[in-house]
């Protein structure tokens, strides 16, 4: 799908807002033309989506309302207005009106060949523009001020990106519907973000994730009765996100937790060693044996850490007594100095 555009993650919920804001456009386009031609309806949706987006922008820059408020506001107001128009249309004596609300929830199965072609063309166009303006997009995304000083027309690039997002959303509406479009936009990108730090890889991954969730979702929904396509696609995408969150090597929760535990263990080991060093320092003979009980009044000590210390040849154990070895004393002393210098 067109998920790759969602990398513009600073406007994550914009997708949600636009998809709702497109509704009055569809309704107005229908009211004006009176026909249920996909292209005109999409054009209407595009226009109202764009109006919504720029109004949001206007609210955020011109007033002190925050972006979340602006988003929620535009979203609900446009949608409400769209509902008003839809119900108004339903009361009109025009047999053609049925099926307009299909746009609300989407039904991939209702797509006809021409729709698919349209989508393919738009996807191609998006790709082309993306490649053409790749450098500019990237710059703008990460350092808008720098882009401006370089002399790029930031406003133009911004409008370009936004328009394409809106376009992608409006097209996607038919397939997954208003509510779920934001997930289609976000989920692949959020999943891709976990695996890489490079924008190019991320866009590519997002596209792959999006495509896979589309394929799997459709397959699952086709294999069972009564399963609408949109929600299933979204759920598959969510699974992708979840897996990415947990298992991604550098940012994933699982590895983070493992790293966290390992660090804590290391720290405890060091603590024990430092404590031993403290005791040993008071004696002339560093390998003078001490009772294990001595360590009890201090939390970092467990049987396991002791064993580990023995393994590393820092400590020798004799019955209930322990004593530091030469290397152990050395390391502990260094550890201490290293830590103090780091502290300072």
């Amino acid at each position, binding site marked *: 799908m067109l998920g790759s555009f969602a990398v513009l*993650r600073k406007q*994550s*919920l914009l*997708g*949600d807002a636009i998809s*709702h804001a497109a509704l009055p456009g569809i309704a107005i386009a229908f009211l004006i033309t009176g026909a249920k031609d996909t292209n005109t309806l999409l054009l209407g949706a595009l226009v109202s989506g764009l109006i919504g987006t720029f109004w949001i922008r*206007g*609210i955020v820059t*011109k*007033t*002190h*309302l*925050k972006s*979340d*408020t*602006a*988003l*929620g*506001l535009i*979203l*609900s*107001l*446009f*949608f*409400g*207005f*769209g*509902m*008003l*128009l*839809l*119900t*108004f249309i339903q*009361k009109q004596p025009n047999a053609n009106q049925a099926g307009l609300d299909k746009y*609300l*929830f989407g039904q991939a199965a209702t797509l006809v060949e021409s729709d698919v072609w349209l989508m393919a063309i738009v996807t191609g166009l998006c790709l082309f523009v993306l490649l053409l303006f790749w450098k500019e997009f990237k710059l703008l995304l990460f350092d808008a001020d720098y882009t401006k000083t370089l002399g790029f027309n930031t406003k133009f690039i911004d409008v370009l990106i936004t328009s394409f997002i809106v376009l992608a959303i409006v097209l996607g509406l038919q397939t997954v519907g208003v*509510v*779920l479009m*934001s*997930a289609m*936009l*976000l*989920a692949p990108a*959020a999943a891709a*973000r*976990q695996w890489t730090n490079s924008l190019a890889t991320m866009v590519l991954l997002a596209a792959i994730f999006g495509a896979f969730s589309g394929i799997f979702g459709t397959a699952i929904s086709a294999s069972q009765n*009564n*399963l*609408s396509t*949109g*929600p*299933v696609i*979204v*759920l598959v995408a*969510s699974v992708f*996100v979840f897996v990415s*969150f947990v298992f991604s090597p550098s*940012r994933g*929760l699982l590895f*983070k937790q493992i790293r966290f535990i390992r660090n804590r263990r290391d720290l405890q080991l060091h603590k024990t060693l430092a404590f031993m060093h403290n005791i040993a320092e008071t004696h002339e003979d560093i390998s003078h044996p001490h009772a294990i009980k001595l360590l009890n009044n201090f939390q970092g000590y467990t049987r396991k850490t002791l064993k580990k210390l023995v393994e590393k040849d820092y400590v020798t154990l004799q019955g209930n007594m322990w004593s530091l070895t030469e290397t152990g004393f050395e390391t502990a002393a260094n550890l201490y100095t290293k830590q103090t210098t780091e502290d300072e």
Partner: protein
Amino acid sequence: MNSAQIEIQLIASLVAIACAIPGTFLVLRKMAMISDAISHSILPGIVIGFFITHNLNSPLLILFAAFTGIITVILVEYIQKTGLVKEDTAIGLVFPALFSIGVILIAKNANDVHLDVDAVLLGELAFAPFDRLLISGIDVGPKALWIIGIILLITISLLIAFFKELKISTFDAGLAASLGFSPAIIHYGLMSVASVTTVGAFDAVGAILVVALMIAPAATAYLLTTDLKKMLSLAIGFGVLSAISGYWFAHWLDASIAGSITTMLGLIFLLVYLFAPSKGVIAVLYREKQQRTEVSLLTFLLHLKNHNEEEERHVNHLREHINWQKVRAKTVLELALKNNMIVIDENIVSLTKKGNTFTSKAIDYIITNEDTQIEDMKDDFFLFRG
């Protein structure tokens, strides 16, 4: 106006009030989108509640829905806390997933019952009066009225009881924490109220309208005032106003009540957005223009101060020199004249005593770059007051 109409308007107004109160705090806490997320993600809660009770009217449904609402908040917060994605992305991920689960559950299992997505999302106020609450056989009014009334009562009593705490924790979370109020409890309390209100209201007016009623009046009020109490009462006022006018608009158009209330909210917001006295777009644009003139005036005066030669101070020369257009040059000249900053003698402009001190002060200000001084200056010279 028959009794059903009065009842509808009453319900709509009550919903508006009940939404405006938590909505104000959500807007202030920059969590407006949470209400959108909650309104979507309560769907699976309702569906599961329905499977358990097999009764669409059971109060358990509301409980379940509110519960999923809170789960949404917790999930969003958890994802956000991992630091993997930002808050808005977290919201955008959680609620479509929950909503999808709800839709699938409905599609798989509840095909033959009266529970479809449209009804949940859009609601229909017009039918609310037909759903009566009967207590031992006596008709005591529409059910929606009772539900929303109870929720409103709870909300208001909570608001009054915890107003101080809410206020402090909204504007200064750190202070609130150091004073011993747990921000977490207040946060989740507010979220619970928001989600209960959403659930109670959506039955009558639909999920989208709930979001609109929460955010729009609060945002509108926020443009007009910065006082919390005033903002609350303004938000309530706007809510009720649009609820009632929306109803009549819908009545006239014969269209969805929820939709037309939202449209009224939108209109009110648009008006305030454009014409609000200090924060509206027109006011902001005007102020920006005034500031531009101020800067021009300063440049102009500085130029005069720097040049003693007569030819440099000739009116026509100035125009070329500072490179202004005719109109702008005229505005600046007039402003300066009006404030007795300059005198024009045979087309030669020269600074008056007042203009001279002003300019020196302005230079001081530019060098030290302290905001307070320019405020004093404005007071001293009555510069931009007509």
